[in-house]
């Protein structure tokens, strides 16, 4: 086989590879972007509660399924997804599932007012310097992370989340925990 022929074959193989890669990429849900944090231990954090109830650490919930939701009152999709979050929180209230809200680039007063108005009764945490959001690689609210009982980030949802996606993510982690 001549070199030129080998190059032609290589080009065809490369084009096929490109087509397969694009086909796989276009089939992926754009809300479920696998960035660096997926499959790795969730970054630890300690943050102050908006309601003045002291501080809260992620490590307080080791062994539980934790849903961390980044939100802001200025974010319209956050208000759209909030009813789903409220329903799912009520569904798992008192169970091995914990929901935490982290305020994204907003003053505490404004965020607290939103929390009260929207009926958010799970802990809402301040992140004044954005360190929690940066450690999770947040692009912008709303973003929701699913953390397993082993403390590893199992999933991430970018954009407004619905009830079905929340329950599916939570139940998958609960099933894993009981294995």
């Amino acid at each position, binding site marked *: 086989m001549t070199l030129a022929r080998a190059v032609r074959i290589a080009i065809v193989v490369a084009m096929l590879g490109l087509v397969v890669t694009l086909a796989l990429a276009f089939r992926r849900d754009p809300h479920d972007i696998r960035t660096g944090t997926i499959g790795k231990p969730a970054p630890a954090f300690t943050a102050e509660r908006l309601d003045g109830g002291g501080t809260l650490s992620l490590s307080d919930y080791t062994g539980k399924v934790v849903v961390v939701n980044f939100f802001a009152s200025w974010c319209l999709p956050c208000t759209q997804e909030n009813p789903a979050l409220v329903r799912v929180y009520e569904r798992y209230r008192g169970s091995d599932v914990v929901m935490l809200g982290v305020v994204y680039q907003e003053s505490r007063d404004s965020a607290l007012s939103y929390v009260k108005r929207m009926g958010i009764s799970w802990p809402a945490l301040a992140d004044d310097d954005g*360190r929690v959001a940066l450690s999770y690689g947040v692009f912008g609210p709303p973003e929701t992370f699913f953390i397993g009982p082993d403390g590893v980030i199992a999933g991430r949802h970018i954009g407004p989340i619905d009830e079905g996606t929340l329950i599916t993510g939570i139940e998958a982690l609960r099933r894993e925990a009981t294995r």
Partner: protein
Amino acid sequence: MTARIVIAAALLAIAATLVLAARPHEATADERVDRITAELRCPVCQGLSVKDSPSETARQMRDLVAERVREGKTDAEIEAEFRTAYGDWVLLSPPIASWSGLVWLAPLAAVAAGVVLATGRVRGGAAVASAEPSAAERAALRERVAREEAAEG
């Protein structure tokens, strides 16, 4: 004579200035912050570095980089922290030793493939141009020339 001395002294002065300017020096904390943030992509912008972006997210990232520099972390450690959170995407120049590093390799591979194909074509063309006619072709040509001469004659 005097002119030569002046020129030599001027050349020496220029050389000394260049050597002094080019000598390696310890980067200040601010220079390091600028250098690192110039390499980081702002997550909420279109193709802007963290250094150049006026966004709140970029400001928070700059503050974090400055804090890590103060803590004595190396540039690589600081970049690694952001890569862990955002992936290689957060670097404006993707590292060569990664999947995204293929973007560096692909153009080189494409140029190499083009050179090989073009060389093959040129050689093939030259081979055709320089090829001697076969015995049958020669006989056919002689026959044609003889036929045309007979027709003219």
